[in-house]
């Protein structure tokens, strides 16, 4: 009987969970490209509550909310991906510099990390958005400048651990260059941590992006970003059009939660200490 259960051990269930979350996100992304912009044209079907034809209802201009939400999520995800990648690059550079270039560099970078962790993030994102003059640049810049800190700390400690390992000393005494060692030995060793850091950073980034657009920074009101959809819907709440708020937000929560669970499961699977739990 026991052997039957072994077919579905914890590891496999976890992998299935990751796969299904990833499939869900891919379907959303695919829908984002597939749904035609025709559904966003103004029509006479205004203020319809959810139905089979319009799963999320329509808004006060007759636009299909489902299409708007999916397109908005596509935009949020691409902005989030771009900002996360930039933050990861900054984190790798800062973390490696802190670990490699001696005590002074380490102290300076630790101080900078403290500075960036300590300040209220949303407040600084607003300043950066304002100074960049709005637009996607401001949002991407603002988010990537404030999210690199935690991962930089991880990279620093990982590199510190790896850099005195025997195989790297041997490689060095074989006359390999610092660049070769970084590329062939150090980065592959810290890659899992970076992947996990990226995946766990993503939900935060999307949340902050949504918050910024909700407050009205960055994107123009015509863009179907998820924050803009919600902030527009805010003025229609008092007339009882709940579907304008509930469904887009719910989908956003589900998307963020799927990312979070993918990151969390992969972390558990990749970390040797917890992979057998």
């Amino acid at each position, binding site marked *: 009987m026991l052997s039957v259960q072994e077919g579905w051990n914890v590891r496999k269930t976890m992998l299935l969970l990751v796969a299904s979350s990833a499939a869900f996100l891919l379907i959303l992304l695919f829908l984002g490209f597939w749904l035609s912009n025709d559904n966003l044209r103004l029509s006479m079907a205004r203020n319809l509550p959810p139905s089979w034809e319009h799963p999320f209802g329509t808004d006060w201009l007759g636009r299909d909310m489902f299409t708007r939400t999916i397109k908005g999520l596509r935009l949020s995800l691409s902005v989030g991906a771009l900002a996360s990648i930039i933050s990861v690059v900054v984190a790798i550079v800062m973390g490696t510099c802190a670990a490699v270039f001696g005590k002074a560099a380490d102290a300076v970078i630790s*101080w*900078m990390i*403290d*500075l960036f962790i*300590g*300040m*209220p*993030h*949303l*407040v*600084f994102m*607003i*300043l*950066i*958005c*304002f*100074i*960049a*003059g709005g637009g996607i640049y401001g949002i991407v810049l603002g988010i990537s400048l404030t999210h690199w800190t935690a991962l930089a700390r991880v990279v620093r400690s990982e590199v510190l651990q790896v850099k005195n390992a025997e195989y790297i000393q041997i490689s060095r005494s074989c006359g390999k260059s610092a660049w070769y060692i970084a590329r062939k030995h150090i980065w592959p060793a810290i890659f899992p941590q970076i992947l996990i850091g990226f995946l766990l950073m993503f*939900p935060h980034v999307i*949340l902050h992006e*949504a*918050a910024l657009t*909700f*407050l*009205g*920074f960055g994107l123009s009101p015509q863009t179907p970003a998820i*924050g803009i959809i*919600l*902030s527009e*819907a*805010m003025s229609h*709440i*008092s007339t*009882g059009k*709940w579907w304008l*708020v*509930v469904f887009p*937000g719910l989908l*956003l*929560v589900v998307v*963020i*939660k799927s990312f*979070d669970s993918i990151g969390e499961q992969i972390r558990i699977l990749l970390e040797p200490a917890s992979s057998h739990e």
Partner: protein
Amino acid sequence: MQEASASENSLSRDAERGAIVAKSIVIRLVRMATLLIGLSVLTFSLIHLSPMDPVNAYIGGDTSASPEQIEKFKQYWGVDKSPVEQYLSWAGSLLQGNFGTSLLYRSPVLDIIQSRFLTSLALMGAAWLLSGAIGYGLGVVAAANRGKLMDRIIKWYSYTLVSTPIFWMGLILLIVFAVWLKWFPVGLAVPAGVLESEVRFIDRVHHFVLPALTLSILGVANVAMHTREKMIDILNSEYIVFAKARGESKWQIFKNHGFRNSILPAISLQFAYFGELFGGSMLAEQVFAYPGLGSTLTTAGLKGDLPLMVGIILVSSLFVFAGNLIADILNKVVDPRMKGAV
């Protein structure tokens, strides 16, 4: 004889410890001061790097500004000097409490911040206390029922809350309580169309509940999860096994061991949460049109009121840094187990 020397010994040890504590607090204060200077340099260079001319940004296309006013702005920023001199003159006037004049409200930035800060502080304070108490309670309950249904529900709730945008939560509460049930008004800290002097306390409370509730609901997750972890560690320790063997009840174990060991990390976590709290209150204030510091910052940012924006940014950063400092001190210095280790 022996007793006297023992007490003397402990006295000198106390004094020694006092000195160590004072020293480590001073070190942290100095560090915080350097961070604040760094922050002001960062803010200044961001403004300086931007393609905008600070004088133009300050005046913001306001054609009514007289030449003398423009001259005053130029003097305030020290436009003609080198960046370092500009920074020094700017920082100097900040230290004297001169944050400039808001373009939107036409009054000194510091006055506006003072009047808005209390409204925000009430909101954040209430949410801070509520979320801390509820989060701690949930964490303890979850740890005590580890692996059972209760624990799973609390865990699921906390993890879901982490992925929930605070403004969406606010909108949902608004729909349920203000639009459907009509228990609370839709927005503003006071009823519309009523003079400031006629606003009763109960009205203020009435308008205050929903934003405070929104902030508290989401603030719970962090403390709950950390308290749960901490509590599970404590419950797995040997002194708990011994306490059980002595026949202490669950409540006694919590009172004598669990509470004492877990309350300090929880409190310091709440202090470190100031940054998130301020961000959250900005969003909640926007949703509920609550006239606090956060919504003022949003308006200032959208309307391009740079002096007001910079003022609020610096004040809120000071607030957040103070929270981090307190958290650090609580964690490393106040904890009696850290005696001599600081």
